[in-house]
């Protein structure tokens, strides 16, 4: 149990390199089933357009899950995340083709707290849009 990243080896301002996560319609269907969120805007193009959206959009929680994966892969232990919050600032539009959309997540060490905890500021982009804002995780380091 515990992060593999050592608190003493981390500096404020240190960047965590971006990782790209692909999202296709299949992922949204799987996420709907696994999460129980069957809102039609996440799988039904006809319904999405009817309520004024450009196309089917990803569940916000799917995007948040990718940001979470970015943090836990960096920290080395999912149990080391003690606080995780985001604002969904823009939609991830997922076209019905073989490419889907890309969510690009990067991070920076924003603050070193007491008890070997750090604040990671997260950036998530899809195309030109910043899809998360105020995205931050507090991680318990070794």
């Amino acid at each position, binding site marked *: 149990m515990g992060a593999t990243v050592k608190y003493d080896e981390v500096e404020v301002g240190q960047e965590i390199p971006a990782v790209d996560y692909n999202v296709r319609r299949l992922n949204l269907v799987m996420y709907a089933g696994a999460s129980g969120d069957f809102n039609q805007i996440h799988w039904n193009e006809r319904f999405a357009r009817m*309520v004024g959206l450009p196309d089917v*959009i990803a569940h*916000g929680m799917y995007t948040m899950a990718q940001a979470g994966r970015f943090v836990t*892969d960096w920290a080395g232990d999912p149990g080391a995340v003690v606080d995780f919050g985001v*604002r*969904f600032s823009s939609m991830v539009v997922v076209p019905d083709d073989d490419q889907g959309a890309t969510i690009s997540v990067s991070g920076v060490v924003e603050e070193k707290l007491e008890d070997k905890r750090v604040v990671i500021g997260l950036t998530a982009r899809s195309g030109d849009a910043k899809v998360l804002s105020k995205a931050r995780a507090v991680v318990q380091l070794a």
Partner: protein
Amino acid sequence: MALNRDFVGRTYPPSAPYEVSRVKIREFAAAIGDSNPVYRDKEAAQAAGYPDVIAPPTFPIVFSLQSGGEALVDPDLGLNLAMVVHGEQRFEYVRPIYAGDQLVTSATITDIRTAGRNELLTVRSDIATAEGEPVCVTYNTIVERGGAG
């Protein structure tokens, strides 16, 4: 239509216990594309110091609206569900969720506000084991697009 501010501060009865299963965690991890073995392999999770497989950080979304969900469909609230998107989400973790946990959720509507043309509503969910051990607190803010018209 503006949301009914009388709902702020309302608390909802605790949910029936949600039983966290290894199969559900595996399904959720597969859906988010995360192959971390501590979500899938009991031995790997135990080698990492956990009693059983643990759940990904965003897993509480699966069951955290079991308490309070009825508020969102209460006609007195005035929420048009077709116009709802997710605005903000936050998790404060006391410990990871383990397979085998029996989790009870208690919900409170903590805030309703207007932002531009939208209406925002925040539900706080306190998640604890059936024995009362705190596990996680979640804050879920939904946006009703155009709700403030």
